[in-house]
């Protein structure tokens, strides 16, 4: 067959000569494409947000700048709806409660199933992902009677947390499952048990600490969801943040405060995300 022979001399190049072969060229073309894509999409996603922010700084006369809308967050009030700032507070509390209940409900159960009741794992996964298939709008129609019963206990908007936990399940479960799968829970628990730990200790002191990242992730996803939830609160005639904003926009269209509050909640979500990525990086730095 064919022979490979070596031939003639090629000049020895300087050590940092860039590759000009096929792969190099292809690489450069790809990078061009990538940066074009990133720019286009970056603009698409950024511009509406900028518009939102811009309008939040709009003054009484078109084209002027003012912080009125931002100051109004604290003071806005209108008949028929609760004061904006109290709704903001309640929604934040709702986020905290929902996250807390979520973690307490889901994490020990997940771990317990993984360690002791394996055959329920599939069922749990199915149930946790089911809310994705049952639209909130359907859920809320069926929730009417149930919430009527609960409403007797308390009319507070905070009662929404019962259903918000369900809504957040798919997202939180995925994050938590990823965290749980990343560690060898069975081996860890067996090691702990052989050293004399009770099941409670195993779950709380051995497994859960290894899931901090995932739990933080789930917590943030849940909070983001609660802050952005509209449909169910709306149907059940509660006033959470989104419902309040909606009402304001219907009563006084283009009220500046809706833009400022929206921008604020976005910034808040963004800050939450930054916290998550920083916390993660620090953990990764721990040698082990």
């Amino acid at each position, binding site marked *: 067959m064919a022979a490979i022979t070596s*031939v003639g001399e090629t000049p020895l190049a300087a050590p940092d000569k860039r590759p000009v072969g096929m792969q190099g060229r292809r690489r450069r073309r790809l990078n061009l494409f990538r940066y074009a894509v990133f720019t286009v999409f970056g603009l698409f996603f950024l511009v509406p947000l900028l518009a939102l922010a811009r309008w939040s700084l709009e003054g009484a006369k078109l084209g002027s700048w003012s912080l009125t809308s931002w100051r109004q967050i604290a003071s806005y009030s209108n008949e028929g709806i609760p004061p904006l700032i109290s709704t903001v507070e309640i929604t934040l509390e709702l986020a905290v409660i929902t996250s807390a209940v979520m973690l307490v409900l889901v994490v020990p159960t997940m771990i317990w199933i993984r360690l002791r009741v394996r055959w329920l794992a599939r069922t749990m996964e199915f149930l946790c992902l089911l809310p994705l298939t049952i639209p909130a709008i359907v859920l809320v129609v069926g929730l009417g009677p149930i919430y009527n019963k609960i409403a007797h206990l308390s009319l507070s908007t905070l009662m929404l947390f019962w259903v918000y936990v369900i809504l957040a399940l798919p997202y939180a479960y995925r994050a938590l499952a990823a965290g749980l799968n990343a560690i060898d829970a069975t081996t860890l628990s067996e090691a702990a048990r052989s050293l004399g730990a009770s099941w409670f200790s195993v779950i709380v002191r051995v497994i859960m600490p290894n899931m901090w990242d995932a739990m933080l992730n789930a917590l943030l996803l849940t909070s983001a969801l609660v802050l952005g939830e509209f449909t169910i609160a709306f149907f059940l005639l509660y006033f959470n943040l989104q419902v309040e904003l909606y009402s304001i926009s219907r009563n006084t269209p283009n009220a500046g405060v809706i833009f400022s509050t929206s921008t604020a909640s976005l910034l808040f979500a963004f800050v939450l995300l930054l916290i998550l990525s920083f916390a993660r990086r620090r953990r990764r730095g721990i040698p082990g």
Partner: protein
Amino acid sequence: MDGLSRRYGTVVALDHLDLTLRPGELVALLGPSGCGKTTTLRLLAGLEDADTGSITVAGKDITRLPASKRDMGMVFQAYSLFPHMTVRDNVAFGLRLRRVSAAERGTRAMEMLELVGLSVQAARYPHQLSGGQQQRVALARALAIQPQVLLLDEPLSALDAKVRAQLRDQIRRIQLEVGITTLFVTHDQEEALAIADRVGVMREGRIEQLASPTEVYSRPATAFVADFVGLSNRLAGEVRGGEVTVRGRTLPLMQPDVPDGQVVALVRPEAVTMASHDEPEAGPLVGMVIAITFLGATSRVTVDLGDATIMAQLPTSDATTLAAGSRVALTIRPDPVLVSADAEAASPEAEEEA
């Protein structure tokens, strides 16, 4: 391949490498991980670009040619079969790209599968085959396009030991049958020595020695080669007048002009044998057995000589007379040995990948 260099940032993967393959021969590139053997292969395949140098096949310069235009067949370490195609479609893929008719594609694909012994599995999917079978299909696929060169990138590394040995021989058989020029990359010296026409031992981007397996083994060109291929005892010795004296035995030198002085001699364990079966007296080659490793027909006996440790490879029948703690007298066969003046240069390489 001539003068090939490749850098990744500050790491020099290849340092002006020259390599010529003769038609129909199988050259194995052997070396620890990071030595540049895979880079060489990929350069030849066109999957990477060289910084300097040229590559010529059958007299034609292909350095600037993209991988898809080079006429080479490549077998990867793992995962290279297309999972959504049957075995037959995988093998026929290259022919399909060359617009061969469906009927002829099928025939040729079956021919190739016959060659590797997998024609029964033609309608199966890759995930239904074992690792060894998958690699055979990959081989069939590479050969189906009748390339000028066959490239094998550690094809056996991901397989079980038993399968590895079988497949290795099969690859060699097929390669000889088809008569195709082949470049085979591996970190397993047993593989390289077993099937290659010539072995290229590489280290840090350079070829240290390129010769037949026997030559590389029994006449290593450098200390690194001697150490990487097979085992060596490292013993202090003194050179005088073209010979080296090691622990009371005088041995011929492999290298022609070594100046007189203190050296480190590299002695193969097979060259170390038992002096006699009688009760040994004291001597530079008398010591206590520390360990005996059973290797089948032979056994490796590690002996503590007081100021050094030596390994001897003895027939098991002899080794069974010894036990840990017993004393034994050894002798060294007068085979030519390699010496190194610099103890550092003879030191072993870092651990290679399993």
